[in-house]
């Protein structure tokens, strides 16, 4: 039933991220939707444009000690510490369920070294049921003294090349917003062969408990997400979309249909919903519905007609 609906010719919500075809532009962001199954009772997963799973590393990671999250004004900080089951268990335990979903599954990967990124890519490349890889480059490069791959253009390019060289899966590189020049990062990664770009990951932030004089996160600093960061995300998506020729996926503070439209108008070919999944698990589905209504109301031939239509005087 639902699948039929999704293939209804009208409203036409299909978008392409390079070779990756989505039935609609609404995906769920890594780390905010678990391995999708967590949401199966509350969301009709088959209606989504795509699912990006929690970041996977080569070996399992326990993550940071608690507290890992703290609410801020219109946002939240997280320092999960990339807790995950590791690629082997991921393939064994999570993929079978994900394969049963009728939507593209994108696997978010991370590593401390280029070799790790490469190794995990190899292990995922032959697995059936993976539509694409999303490369999280916001991790510190342990070999380079902990400077994040995501803040130095040539390091980001190196990770991208390494991943591309060992896989034929479409590669989406996820950019960190904690940089002086997001366009430079984007261009560097594009030149290195990325098939698409997703942005933004979280801004780095912090909060202090004035009663105890301790950081509110055990890890001291964490990633800021939610509506608070939407203006920064939208600006970066707009700047990048104007300069690259590969598709851009918008992420950051998307909370409702209008937010999603803002990103499409700014030039994103698709969007990812993150923190909002916690607040309203049904939000991604609601946004799909909302965009559908909008496309009908505006009598657009397809949602693709919206992409990059910002009018600047």
């Amino acid at each position, binding site marked *: 039933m639902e699948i039929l609906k999704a293939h209804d010719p009208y409203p036409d919500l299909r978008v392409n991220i390079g070779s990756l075809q989505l039935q609609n532009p609404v995906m769920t962001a890594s*780390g*905010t*939707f*678990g391995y999708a199954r*967590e*949401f199966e*009772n*509350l969301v009709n997963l088959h209606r989504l444009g795509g699912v990006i799973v*929690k970041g996977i590393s080569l070996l399992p990671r*326990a*993550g940071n*000690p*608690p*507290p*890992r*999250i*703290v*609410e*801020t*004004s*219109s*946002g*939240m900080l*997280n320092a*999960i510490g990339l*807790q995950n089951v590791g690629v082997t268990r991921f393939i064994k335990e999570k993929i079978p369920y994900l394969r049963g979903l009728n939507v593209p599954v994108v696997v978010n990967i991370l590593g401390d070294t280029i070799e790790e990124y490469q190794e995990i890519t190899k292990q995922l490349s032959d697995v059936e049921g993976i539509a694409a890889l999303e490369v999280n480059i916001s991790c510190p490069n342990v070999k380079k003294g902990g400077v994040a791959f995501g803040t130095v253009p040539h390091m980001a390019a190196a990770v991208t090349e390494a991943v591309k060289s060992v896989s034929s899966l479409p590669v989406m590189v996820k950019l960190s917003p904690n940089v002086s020049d997001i366009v430079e990062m984007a261009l560097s990664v594009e030149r290195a062969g990325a098939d698409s770009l997703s942005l933004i990951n979280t801004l780095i932030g912090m909060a202090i408990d004035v009663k105890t004089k301790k950081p509110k996160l055990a890890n001291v600093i964490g990633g800021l997400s*939610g*509506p608070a960061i939407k203006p920064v995300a939208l600006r970066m998506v707009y700047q990048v979309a104007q300069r690259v020729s590969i598709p851009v996926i918008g992420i950051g503070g998307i*909370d409702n249909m209008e937010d999603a439209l803002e990103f499409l108008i700014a030039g994103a070919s698709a969007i990812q919903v993150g*923190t909002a*999944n*916690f*607040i*309203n*698990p*049904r939000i991604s589905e609601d946004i799909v519905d909302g965009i559908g209504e909008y496309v009908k109301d505006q009598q657009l031939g397809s949602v693709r007609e919206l992409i990059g239509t910002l009018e600047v005087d």
Partner: protein
Amino acid sequence: MSQHQEKARIIRFEQLSEDNFRLTLQSPQIAAQAFPGQFVMILTGKGNDPLLRRPFSLHQASTNGSIQVYFKNVGRGTDILAHAKEGEILDVFGPLGRGYRLVDEKPACLLGGGLGIAPLLFLAKALAKRNRDATSDLILLGGRSKPEVEPLVDDFKQFGMKIICATDDGTYGEEGFVTESLDSERVAPGTHVYACGPEAMLETVHDICLQRGFGCQVSVESVMACGMGACLGCNIPASDGTYAHVCIDGPVFDSGALVWKS
């Protein structure tokens, strides 16, 4: 076990004391699935302040399709709920987490401190419905002062279990910590303890149970973003060296499965 997201109408609003409130919500899908010790996530405000949902234990879930939450006004989210009106609609999802395991063959001791009393009413009801020997069952309710305990006692009486109350300041029931009773002969040997309350109290409960050889389940708290295992934000150290997640592995744990500070 399945979860539901419902637009739940507030059918009863009760202020039980200056800071403590109880909401009865029409929420048939959640009520039908709920188990004692589980919780729900409630959207407290309309806009983005506060941004995240707030977790609340199920104080009651009724076959007539209603659920109850019993809460204290401690901050922005609970303040909004404390000003809610009958007839208003709240966005709620649940039931979430693992509740109390009912150990039918042992005498039960339900021990709640402060707001930790919340899940025990639902638990008492569930235990009362079982076909088991309840003669040595005991309910221990504690709090800082009378308003934290007294308004709830009547509701517990219906189950016919013995109830002992204690307040730190002696304004209601016995003076002192409710855990003192646990450490006395009032609690039958071989009792299984079901506790909920502040961390320090639960630690004492764990210690006493260990000493006396009681089985012990505790319901713990943690900050939560999603309540359903997706954000991984609610971890606590487990005694096996890994992290447990309060929202899916708990909130109820065997007390021995957790790491206690001291």
